[in-house]
């Protein structure tokens, strides 16, 4: 039944999401099922089976590609016990298991995306350098060492228009050029951690980016800062560094040139502020991750006082692709001032959540409705919060905005770290602001007063407001303190932490005012809710009475029940258990 020339490839998604969903077991199940059928022996070289990095749609893990003679079928939600059937019916029988194949939403998810940084993620085996090389990896390094001077590299990167993906969006080529221009016997390049996906899926691209960057600025040492909470990423990076050294893409005399460059891994302890460049420098120096005043800027006086370029992981992963395909190719994507693509973590109330890479300038509408598949439960979109914990909100009337640095900044949001959270009618904006602020407050390095105490006071005010204890003038005070904290804080954390507050007040002021009046329109703030029983709907089943932990509900069987507001602790248990929607809340 097999043709002798059949070419079979199986790719199992083994990013952290994939592994958590059982990727390792699925891979093992394929292995034994195929062995049992003696397929490997028969297919000889024709069959390969491997793990690949994350492909973005983690919600659907474990994702498996079965590629037979270049025709690919993708399965979703695969568990080990399902493997046998795929082998039997699809690989042996030739008929894909239709029930388990990914549906339209999977394809739509990819359609509007443009993958550069993530282009090889999900295709290559991140633990195998040959897999990367055969996909064109390290060509850029070869090209640079063979035919480009450091200045050429800088020119090319400047021409590509690549801007830092770590938040500030500073032109990468300009940063490199500044560092190149500083005289020093020692320089450093630091790769700032962002998201585990790139490192897990394609660690070599990051290494390549660093090698090229180091060559451009004249650094002999590099550090990759990576959070210790992501052991898989760490492991894969270690393997990749080792392999790159063995092949002379890294280490002494790279590709037999006179240039040497080594990379060390610095494991982070999870402090958010360590992502801030000066705090990161302090941390790598062995001190507490605490921001330092700029100037002096790191490109002049960075790590141990030496000129240092700090780039985001995603920024660096773009480099080899730009060198390979050219600045013009890269800058063909994006808008006038924001070139190329950007990775976003799309989360919240959209149907398809996951990691996406889109060309700069794509509209928010396309992201949410085409890629994201629209709002879950087809509820009303309320806002999109972009840029991570210190980003800003965008309202539905602005959905046609271009997602790029300038346009987002204009409406009080940022590209930032690439977080994109979709909020619907059930989200309370005051609560959202409080949520983000409680994160940034807890992560403040504690050095400067406005951030350490100011954000705490903002948080307290928000907390008061959500608890119905807000006062006349609180909104104005929030605005005043927010702007003072922004103006007076030392580093980016404090300077941006109040953004969610300002942005939600700007677009949802009436929601704040409603809270001051004792109402939470989204019905989220518990203290502002009152629970009551709608007598007309109540069947007197007693479910709520049994569920209430506070004994606040009374009533006879088959007769309308009653909630004692004095006793009610607003836990919402009755609301959840009532089958007849007889419990109301306001």
């Amino acid at each position, binding site marked *: 039944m097999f043709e002798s020339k059949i070419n079979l490839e199986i790719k199992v998604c083994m990013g952290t999401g994939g592994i958590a969903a059982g990727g390792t077991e699925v891979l093992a199940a394929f292995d034994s099922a195929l062995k049992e059928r003696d397929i490997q022996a028969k297919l000889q070289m024709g069959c390969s089976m491997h793990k690949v990095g994350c492909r973005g749609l983690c919600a659907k893990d474990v994702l498996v590609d079965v590629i037979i003679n270049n025709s690919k079928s993708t399965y979703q939600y695969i568990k080990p016990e399902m493997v046998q059937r795929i082998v039997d019916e699809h690989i042996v029988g030739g008929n894909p298991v239709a029930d388990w194949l990914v549906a339209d939403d999977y394809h739509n998810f990819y359609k509007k995306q443009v993958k550069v940084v993530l282009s090889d993620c999900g295709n290559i085996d991140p633990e195998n350098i040959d897999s990367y090389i055969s996909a064109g990896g390290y060509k850029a390094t070869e090209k640079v060492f063979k035919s480009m001077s450091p200045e050429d590299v800088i020119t090319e990167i400047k021409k590509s228009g690549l801007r830092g993906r770590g938040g500030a969006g500073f032109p990468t080529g300009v940063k490199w050029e500044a560092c190149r221009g500083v005289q020093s016997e020692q320089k450093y390049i630091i790769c700032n951690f962002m998201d585990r996906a790139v490192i897990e899926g394609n660690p070599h691209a990051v290494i390549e980016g660093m090698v090229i960057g180091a060559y451009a600025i004249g650094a002999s040492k590099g550090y990759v800062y990576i959070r210790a909470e992501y052991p898989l990423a760490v492991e894969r990076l270690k393997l990749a560094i080792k392999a790159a050294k063995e092949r002379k893409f890294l280490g002494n005399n790279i590709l037999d040139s006179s240039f040497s460059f080594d990379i060390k891994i610095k494991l982070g302890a999870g402090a958010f502020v360590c992502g801030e460049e000066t705090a990161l420098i302090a941390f790598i120096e062995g001190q507490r991750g605490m921001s330092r*005043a700029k100037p002096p800027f790191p490109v002049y006086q960075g790590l141990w006082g030496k000129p240092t370029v700090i780039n985001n992981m995603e920024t660096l992963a773009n480099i080899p692709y730009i060198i390979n395909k050219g600045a013009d190719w890269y800058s063909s994507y994006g808008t006038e001032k924001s070139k190329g693509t950007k990775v976003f973590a799309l989360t919240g109330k959209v149907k398809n959540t996951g990691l996406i890479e889109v060309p700069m300038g794509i509209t928010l509408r396309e992201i949410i409705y085409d890629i994201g598949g629209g709002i879950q439960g087809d509820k009303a979109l309320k806002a999109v919060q972009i840029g991570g914990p210190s980003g800003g909100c965008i309202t539905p009337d602005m959905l046609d905005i271009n997602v790029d640095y300038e346009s987002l900044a204009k409406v009080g949001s940022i590209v930032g770290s690439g977080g994109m959270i979709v909020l619907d009618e059930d989200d309370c904006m005051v609560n959202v602001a409080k949520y983000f602020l409680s994160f940034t407050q*807890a992560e403040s390095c504690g050095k400067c007063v406005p951030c350490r105490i100011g954000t*705490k006071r903002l948080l307290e005010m928000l907390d008061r407001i959500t608890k119905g204890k807000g006062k006349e003038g609180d909104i104005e005070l929030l605005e005043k303190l927010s702007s003072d904290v922004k103006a007076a804080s030392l580093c980016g954390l404090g300077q941006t932490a109040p953004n969610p507050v300002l942005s939600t007040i700007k677009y949802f002021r009436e929601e704040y005012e409603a809270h001051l009046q004792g109402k939470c329109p989204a019905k989220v703030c518990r203290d502002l809710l009152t629970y009551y029983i709608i007598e007309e709907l109540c069947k007197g089943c007693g479910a709520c009475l049994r569920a209430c932990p506070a004994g606040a509900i009374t009533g006879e069987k088959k007769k309308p029940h009653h909630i004692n507001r004095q006793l009610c602790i607003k836990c919402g248990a009755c609301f959840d258990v009532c089958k007849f929607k007889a419990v109301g809340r306001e």
Partner: protein
Amino acid sequence: MPKVTIDGRTIEVPTGTTVLDAAKMLDIPIPTLCYHPKLTPFGGCRLCIVEIKGIPRPVTSCTTPVSEGMEVTTSTPQIEDLRKTVLELILSDHPNDCMVCERAGDCTLQELAYFYGIRENRFAGERRIYTKRDGNPFIERDLEKCILCGRCVKVCDEVQGVGAIDFGYRGFKSKICTPYEKDLDCEFCGQCVAVCPTGALTGKLWAFKGRQKDIKEIDTVCPYCGTGCNITLHIRRNEVVRVTSREDTWNEGWLCVKGRFGYKFISSSDRLKKPLIKRNGQFEEVSWDKALDYIAEKLNDIKSKYGADAIGGLSSARCTNEENYLFQKLMRAAIGTNNVDHCARL
């Protein structure tokens, strides 16, 4: 040597000079809390912010080096407003303890609060409450009064090379701690106490011994090792109640545990207070005249019996030059022997 213009006045300063230092040279006041002239700049309190032409946001003058042609404005309504907010924020997390605080009257924070007229606090809220007190015998650490200016951390590391304390925790809970929050166990030089701008760090020895306004300060020299650090004795009612050292001394205000905390022997109750003569193995208090006459009589006696060289004198490396000079003069000129030495070798 870059030139900088501050509030309309121009000055040329050495490369690397900060805006704050340049302003000082011009005698232009800028409020500071975390800045300390002997430590590397910290930039945490944000009080020293100024406006620099061409930079969109206020910058801290203590951390910003002057560059050629810089134009600085040290006080604008916005800047003063931000400073006030910052101070109010600090005070919103500070005990209202000035009435019983050791540092009242000698506290930078108090002074600034007065200067900015801060009373009502728009930002009143939760305060950090720490019950734990440190069990060490030298330094009181009242962390509720700590404004996290970082001076103590810096002095301990940069000057003393000990690093006994560092910032711990994050966010509002940030705090100066020892490793594992154990009791302080360090060299107890008290440098941190000396640089703390508030009442957070004080000497346990000087608790309730009198606040600065009641105290007379006398400059002298440390009685211990040969370094000869300059110290200032703080006197209240004929008692040394505290020792400090001025920043403009050659020792830059730094002392060690002995110099800073080792003064209590002065007022020790077992100080000798009267001349004593031993009779039948027992000391008896006598008048000075009696003791001196007795000494003279005995020495004359021995000298005439055995010669001057039967008498020896040992003077002290802890006495003054003048006393030592007179002592050897006494031995040589009055008694007539060169048998005089001191303990230089011991």
